[in-house]
């Protein structure tokens, strides 16, 4: 295990890399740090440590430094600055940028040149963010562990033998390692929240349809979500404010107005009603996880929140139907490649996709048709009279790469599939959900707290998460690489 270090001291180049995204943006806006210095601090961390972590697929070093110099010049000239101006980021290698290769973590798309730029990248560009390149990920965003047979496994910066979580493995590992201040992930069954948890950072999956998906590799049209991995809830609030909102190119994106999420971060959660869902989410949970989860609830209660234990009869159906939708949609998307190039997939991916072809069409239709009614039932059970649902993000301690490696041993199947047990249901339900660090297990690996709320209540989960982070420092701890 790599012992945590405090990130309180932020002087010098290495100190700059320890800032949160909003701290870096605000330092740039105030003239306290240049974009060039922020970018160089990140590049130095990548140069020093990514050989071990393996989070980066493509580093656009010169382009990033040129963009940073342009940002510095713009500020010096008094030009208007966006809310993310001067902040270096990298993104999961499935967000298309016109003319650039987007591998999707695969051999099949190793040379795929994107024909257009993703809406979320356009919005980040407009906000002034500096794009330094692309990140390692599970092949086609299809595993929850961080294994990748084509670009090499991504390694957890807290202990290189352990999983990063997936599928946004490079996003979680790189934010934790202080290689950049924020990264786009994607979340179809937990792929933002799991690497956030396993790597000890903060990850937000917004309400289904809240963030447009134009120019993003699809995995499951019904359950795919775009969102950030960052250090703090405040970072997530600002990032979401930039990326959310209707896009004509994505007719599924929600027309609801985008509120000022940062304005909701009052630190005041007196009277916040938290429901702990005891059905399913705590079954078989490891003792260190339960202890950290209960301690986190104690912190929230000490701040004035009211915690109540609830059960949800809807969970059995939710869990069953969740398994149906993503398997079938993934199988359909990959059908031609599974026929023509099955050997180009990693074993763990082709084996998961294969099962999707066996599921009857009527069950897929049933799973989709029950989604609305089951959402209504779950909300009635867990959120009528309550503001937030709380669960551990991952039931178990962080597993090692070896013990979840299906390619090496199919007997690891059950442990591999169990990783996303607590995150998948919220994709079926479409609810906004955040994961934030709430402790460490007995092996020194991070533990995550998951908070969900009603549709479009991102401000509520962000307010609760931010209040928790105002009185704890789990999110400030960084691995000593």
């Amino acid at each position: 295990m790599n012992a945590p270090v405090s990130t309180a001291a932020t002087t010098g180049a290495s100190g700059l890399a320890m800032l949160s995204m909003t701290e870096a943006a605000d330092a740039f806006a105030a003239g306290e740090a240049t974009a060039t210095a922020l970018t160089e601090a990140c590049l130095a961390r990548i140069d020093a440590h990514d050989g071990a972590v393996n989070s980066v697929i493509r580093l656009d070093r010169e382009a990033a430094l040129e963009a940073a110099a342009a940002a510095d010049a713009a500020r010096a000239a008094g030009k208007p600055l966006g809310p993310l101006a001067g902040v270096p980021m990298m993104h999961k290698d499935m967000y298309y940028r016109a003319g650039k290769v987007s591998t999707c973590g695969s051999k099949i798309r190793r040379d795929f040149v994107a024909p257009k730029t993703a809406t979320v990248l356009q919005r980040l560009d407009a906000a002034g963010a500096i794009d330094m390149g692309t990140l390692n990920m599970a092949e086609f965003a299809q595993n929850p562990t961080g294994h990748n047979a084509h670009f090499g496994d991504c390694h957890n910066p807290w202990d290189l033998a352990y999983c990063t979580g997936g599928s946004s493995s490079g996003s979680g590992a790189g934010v934790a390692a202080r290689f950049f201040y924020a990264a786009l992930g994607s979340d179809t069954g937990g792929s933002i929240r799991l690497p956030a948890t396993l790597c000890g950072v903060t990850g937000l999956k917004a309400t289904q349809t809240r963030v447009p998906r134009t120019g993003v590799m699809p995995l499951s049209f019904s359950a795919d979500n775009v969102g950030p991995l960052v250090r703090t809830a405040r970072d997530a609030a600002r990032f979401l404010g930039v990326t959310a909102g209707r896009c004509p190119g994505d007719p599924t994106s929600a027309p609801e107005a985008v509120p000022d999420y940062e304005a909701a971060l009052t630190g005041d959660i007196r009277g916040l009603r938290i429901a702990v869902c005891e059905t399913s989410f705590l079954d078989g949970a490891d003792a260190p996880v339960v202890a950290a989860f209960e301690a986190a609830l104690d912190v929230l209660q000490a701040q004035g929140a009211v915690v109540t234990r609830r059960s949800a009869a809807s969970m059995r159906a939710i869990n069953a139907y969740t398994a149906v939708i993503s398997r079938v949609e993934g199988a359909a998307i990959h059908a031609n490649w599974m026929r023509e190039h099955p050997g180009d997939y990693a074993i763990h991916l082709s084996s998961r996709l294969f099962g999707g072809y066996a599921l009857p069409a009527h069950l897929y239709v049933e799973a989709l048709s029950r989604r609305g009614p089951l959402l209504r039932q779950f909300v009635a059970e867990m959120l009528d009279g309550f503001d937030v649902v709380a669960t551990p993000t991952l039931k178990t301690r962080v597993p090692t790469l070896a013990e979840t490696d299906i390619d090496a041993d199919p007997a690891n199947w059950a442990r591999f599939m169990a990783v996303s047990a607590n995150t998948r249901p919220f994709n079926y339900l479409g609810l906004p959900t955040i994961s934030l660090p709430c402790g460490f297990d007995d092996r020194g690996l991070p533990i995550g707290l998951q908070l969900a709320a009603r549709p479009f209540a991102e401000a509520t989960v962000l307010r609760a998460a931010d209040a928790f982070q105002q009185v704890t420092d789990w999110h400030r701890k960084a691995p000593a690489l």
Partner: protein
Amino acid sequence: MEPELVVPTMEAIRRWSGVAVPNAAARAGLADHAALIAELAALRGSMVFEDEPSSFEAALRDLKEAGR
């Protein structure tokens, strides 16, 4: 021991989709379907189509926080 459903399921996939079993892990994954089938069987009768039009997107909007 491999469940009985694995071989006929592989054959059905090949016939309907033209996809051949890619590896041993895929066979192991099909064995996992026995549990999913049992779960879905247990839901029979409790899950019915509703007479009135409804959709997931409509539910998302209906269930928003009051005042939002």
